[in-house]
């Protein structure tokens, strides 16, 4: 079969080749394309190619760039000549990825690839149209050499004050065709000239191997990592418990406000960036949610999470981190604008990729705490693509920092726990290495209690109810005070219960002052009672009060006796009085000062006057306004008539609208562009409202889902969305 196009080439591939292509480029099979034509369209579309290019490492990219600047069809030999023998291996791989393909006359790249790689690949200008005597360059005058020197490594465009009056060097170059005028002020260095001057190569340095990562080899990695893990688990619990007691409120624009982040950081005793990270992890792992009323609260998942063992808890958080597309490091970064943690602005599409890359590099460099510069260089080699600004150094830095916080690394080195986690293990070693929880405390006579290790969950919960936490860490220091004991009593504990619980939980005898403190607070607690009521009834004669409370007819008031001489009612004073009067009692009203209210007053509204709006005729507009309105109307009318006339002419000339499927459309257009440029096409194009109109166009270029073409009706170059083209027909 003769290979005429990329689609034809794909048809020749066997299953194995397709499988490896799909493995490299998973976007090609999500969703699965209906036929090879669709596959060809998708795989040569700009977004898919861009993804494929992004996945290349520096060396692969260099070879691909060389392929892209060669005139098609090109040969392996030509590529090797400009690079290195080892490029052959890379080319094989690039073919597997579908970034180069073979036709019978030689190798080619998919049509859109050059566009994806950018205008001036490797700082090279366009190929020269004329045949050049490159040898002449060696004898160029000094002035010309100076110009060439400045332009040789790109960018290939140079600015001159006036192309008609060039300096002597530029003049010589223009004369020999070594520079090409581009416009009045710009000259371009042709590709061949640059390659010749670069010593018959494209890149200054070929980088076939990744830069080496250097760094220290710290000891006590495991110890540091387990400390990090223990700390991180504690932080998570702390954050959630903190917000469970005093829920933070999210900003209207989403996320956590600066003040609340500061408070959180203060509570945890960490930097704000770390606090933001912990909150984010809670969020992405579903332990925390932002309620409809903007309250930030822990979820039920948190309660379930708490009951699991430490290894599971940690894995749960680390897995959520690994795949999340959110970068907590961005929080608060911008000086002008605050980016809020838990807010909508933290998503970055390459976050997970960078994390995966970071971890891969850490795995490859086991035992080394990488020096950041060398680490960043290695990472840049792995992901050199410049799309979206290349690999941000910050992102790498944050990812390494997060690895440390999480305990995936200890002192910057991948820990056993991290390695086990990445290998998909169960991380049971964490349970083995974490300090065992303790179930007791040591109470001291300065009203503090110390838990000499991580406390069992139930004990910690109970203690945090009756004591304030004074210091956190592997151990916890609690302080008992009047207000903390009161909190316990408020939560329904009695003084005796607290004393018993403490003496049971404490390994040291209960100091007498603490016992007294608890007893004192318990004695006073609840002596005063406070409640809501709408009205009260009081009477100096308890007998009358008794009569009222016994009166069945008054049950409607739901009266309650709170003292021998006082009743309270759920209804307000006016209503209560009304009911009492209707059953023959003679109550009098009291105001807030206790004074007797006299007589019925003439009633007045309490609020401000708000008269209704006046509805009537519109005001008469002035002459000027009317004139303007008419003129606007006329102009609009004229342009729309013009358009419809044009449309009618086109319809008449072309008959019915062409119809093709999107894939056919693409294939036709790209074929047309390749083989019959400079001819017009007739297309159906849907507007914003779905109305299909007929257009006659000169296609210029396909790019990222759009067709750039000149529209005959308007004479302007316009972008047509492929999805909106209902059909294409040749004229």
């Amino acid at each position: 079969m003769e290979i005429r196009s990329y689609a034809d080439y794909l048809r020749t591939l066997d299953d194995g080749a397709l499988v490896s292509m799909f493995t490299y480029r998973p976007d090609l099979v999500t969703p699965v394309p209906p036929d090879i034509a669709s596959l060809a369209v998708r795989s040569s579309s700009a977004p898919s190619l861009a993804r494929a290019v992004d996945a290349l490492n520096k060396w692969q990219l260099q070879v691909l760039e060389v392929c892209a600047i060669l005139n098609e069809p090109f040969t392996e030999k030509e590529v090797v000549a400009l690079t290195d023998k080892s490029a052959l291996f890379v080319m094989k791989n690039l073919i597997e990825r579908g970034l180069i393909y073979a036709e019978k006359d030689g190798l080619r790249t998919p049509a859109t690839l050059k566009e994806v790689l950018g205008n001036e690949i490797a700082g090279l200008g366009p190929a020269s149209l004329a045949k050049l005597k490159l040898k002449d360059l060696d004898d160029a005058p000094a002035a010309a050499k100076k110009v060439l020197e400045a332009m040789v490594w790109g960018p290939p465009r140079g600015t001159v004050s006036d192309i008609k009056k060039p300096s002597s060097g530029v003049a010589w170059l223009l004369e020999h065709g070594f520079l090409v005028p581009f416009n009045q002020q710009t000259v371009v260095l042709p590709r061949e000239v640059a390659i010749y001057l670069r010593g018959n190569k494209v890149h200054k340095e070929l980088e076939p191997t990744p830069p080496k990562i250097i760094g220290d080899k710290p000891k006590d990695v495991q110890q540091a990592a387990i400390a990090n893990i223990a700390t991180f688990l504690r932080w998570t619990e702390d954050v959630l418990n903190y917000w469970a007691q005093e829920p933070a409120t999210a900003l209207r624009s989403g996320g956590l406000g600066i003040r609340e982040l500061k408070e959180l950081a203060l509570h945890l005793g960490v930097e704000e960036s770390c606090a933001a990270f912990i909150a984010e992890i809670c969020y992405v792992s579903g332990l925390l949610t932002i309620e409809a009323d903007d309250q930030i609260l822990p979820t039920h998942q948190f309660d379930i999470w708490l009951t699991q063992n430490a290894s599971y808890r940690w894995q749960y958080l680390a897995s959520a981190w690994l795949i999340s597309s959110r970068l907590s490091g961005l929080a608060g970064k911008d000086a002008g604008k605050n980016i809020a943690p838990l807010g909508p602005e933290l998503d970055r599409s390459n976050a997970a990729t960078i994390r995966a890359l970071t971890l891969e590099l850490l795995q490859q460099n086991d035992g080394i705490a990488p020096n950041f510069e060398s680490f960043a260089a290695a990472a840049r080699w792995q992901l050199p693509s410049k799309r979206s600004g290349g690999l941000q150094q910050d992102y790498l830095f944050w990812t390494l920092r997060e690895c440390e916080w999480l305990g995936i690394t200890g002192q910057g080195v991948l820990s056993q726990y991290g390695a086990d986690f990445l290998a998909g293990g169960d991380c049971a070693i964490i349970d083995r290495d974490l300090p065992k929880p303790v179930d007791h405390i040591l109470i001291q006579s300065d009203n503090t209690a110390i838990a000499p290790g991580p406390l069992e969950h139930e004990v910690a919960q109970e203690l945090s109810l009756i004591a304030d936490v004074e210091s956190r860490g592997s151990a916890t220091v609690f302080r008992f005070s009047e207000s903390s004991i009161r909190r316990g009593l408020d939560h329904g504990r009695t003084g005796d219960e607290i004393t018993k619980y403490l003496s049971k939980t404490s390994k040291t005898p209960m100091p007498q002052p603490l016992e007294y403190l608890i007893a004192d607070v318990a004695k006073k607690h609840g002596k005063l009672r406070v409640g809501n009521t709408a009205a009260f009834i009081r009477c100096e004669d308890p007998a009358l009060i008794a009569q009222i409370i016994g009166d069945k007819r008054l049950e409607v008031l739901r009266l309650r006796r709170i003292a021998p001489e006082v009743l309270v009612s759920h209804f307000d004073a006016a209503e209560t009085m009304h009911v009492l009067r209707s059953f023959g009692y003679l109550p009098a009203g009291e105001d807030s000062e206790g004074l007797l209210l006299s007589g019925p007053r003439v009633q007045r509204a309490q609020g401000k006057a708000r008269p209704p709006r006046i509805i009537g005729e519109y005001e008469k507009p002035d002459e000027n306004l009317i004139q303007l309105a008419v003129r606007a109307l006329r102009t609009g009318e004229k342009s729309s008539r013009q358009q419809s006339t044009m449309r009618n002419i086109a319809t008449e000339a072309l008959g019915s609208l062409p119809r093709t499927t999107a894939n056919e459309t693409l294939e036709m257009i790209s074929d047309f562009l390749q083989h019959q440029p400079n001819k017009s096409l007739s297309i159906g194009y849907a507007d914003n409202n779905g109305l299909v109109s007929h257009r006659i166009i000169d296609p210029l270029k396909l790019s990222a889902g759009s067709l750039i073409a000149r529209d005959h009706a308007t004479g302007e170059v316009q972008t047509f969305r492929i999805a909106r083209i209902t059909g294409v027909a040749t004229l």
Partner: protein
Amino acid sequence: MTDGPLIVQSDKTLLLDIDHPLSTECRRAIAPFAELERSPEHIHTYRLTNLGLWNARAAGHDAEQVIDTLIKYSRFAVPHSLLVDVAETMSRYGRLRLEADPVHGLILVTTDSSVLEEVIRAKKIAPLLGVRIDKETIAVHPSQRGQIKQSLLRLGWPAEDFAGYVDGQAHEIAMKEGDWKIRQYQEHAAEGFWHGGSGVVVLPCGAGKTIVGCAAMALAKATTLILVTNTVAARQWRDELLRRTTLNEDEIGEYSGSKKEIRPVTIATYQVMTKKKNGVYAHLDLFDTHDWGLIIYDEVHLLPAPIFRFTADIQSRRRLGLTATLVREDGMEGEVFSLIGPKRFDVPWKEIEAQGYIAPAECIEVRVNLTEAERLSYATAEPEERYRYCATTRTKRNVVEKLVELHAGEQTLVIGQYIDQLDELSETLGVPLIKGDTPQKERERLFAAFRSGEEKCLVVSKVANFSVDLPEATIAIQVSGAFGSRQEEAQRLGRILRPKSDGRGAKFYSVVSRDTIDQDFAQNRQRFLAEQGYSYRIIDADDVFQGKL
């Protein structure tokens, strides 16, 4: 993971389990860089502070040593971030140095010019600086040495001070050991001070701070100015100096309200130093009149504000602060450290007690029920009168009477705040009273009578809170105090902590009205002692009446 005695918390507190076999060793190892915060019975709390870490640097410890110590004794893995923080903090010390320069006098030198750029731009620092000499050096006005050190400390770039101390006028002083020996901890304290140059020594009441002062003088061998709280203390210092050192009476002068002697060793009172004449402090010149080689601040926690200010200007003289209780309700502890110098020596009270150098003491809070009538008038009293009211109730007097009776035959002090209450007590108990307007002679006579055992019981006002040496006092009964002052409580306990000749323990009673503000204040007052490991026992007034103690 070791099973060490130390738990390193992420908020930089260190918890030391003192029941652990390695605890003593660990305490010694962390003492140079961690500050002792609390020392109750089971777990002592230390804290890593910037100041503490910098002092450790100044004393020649490096970050690696500190980190190794933490890891070595830690029970659990130490958070890495904390270690990094320690290393970073310590590395800030010494990037700036204060040096003496033959041409410019005092200069600030750096090894890191960006740090110098940062500090000279600071608003508080700029006015203290002179001409810029080169990229890494700038002149400093010599008089601003204290000020600039303080400001740099606040900025987080502590300067290492190589400018040295003035030796002062030399004067031969030596210790005179005979029937007594200087104790080990006193020696450590004096040496700790001497190596550090200036600083504060914290020792419990009755543990012999004066001897530390004497030892420091013997190391300095120079003329010395000693600042004390009052005249009684001044005389006690003189007696001690005569007994413990080779100084003779002619070499020691007293500079007080009554005498104005300036001699090689001069003892001045805070009172006279801060006395104003026509709106100026007439006596502050004393600092300058003589080329002092050493200035000792006794009871440094009481340092009055004018002396604070003046002290900032004499940074080239060695300064030694002595105290038992460096807690100030006004939160000025930090100022003391930065002006006099860092804490050079601190030791838990209970440890000295265990060594037998202070008497074991039992603290008892006696709770008194107010009568119904007293409760009512307490409830309706004006807020500012409330404490006075509940602290001076009649019921208390009965309890005190009973307590004195129960301890008849033992040397007893009844201590209070309100003079009319003390007048009444003195009358009821039939014992003499010492208060602010008791003449000096009379005071000394009564104290002497008490020491000799002639007087068994004294009622004293706050004049006897500190610096009064009453070795045989065994019982103290506190009836009222300066609200919630922790320091006063500790000082009052200190009155009875001198080891007794027969090894008896001391008893400290604090009589408190139940369910009043008196009780709340008592709780705050007891905090310092509770943190030192003194466990209060609470008993009811009825128990006292029934003789159950």
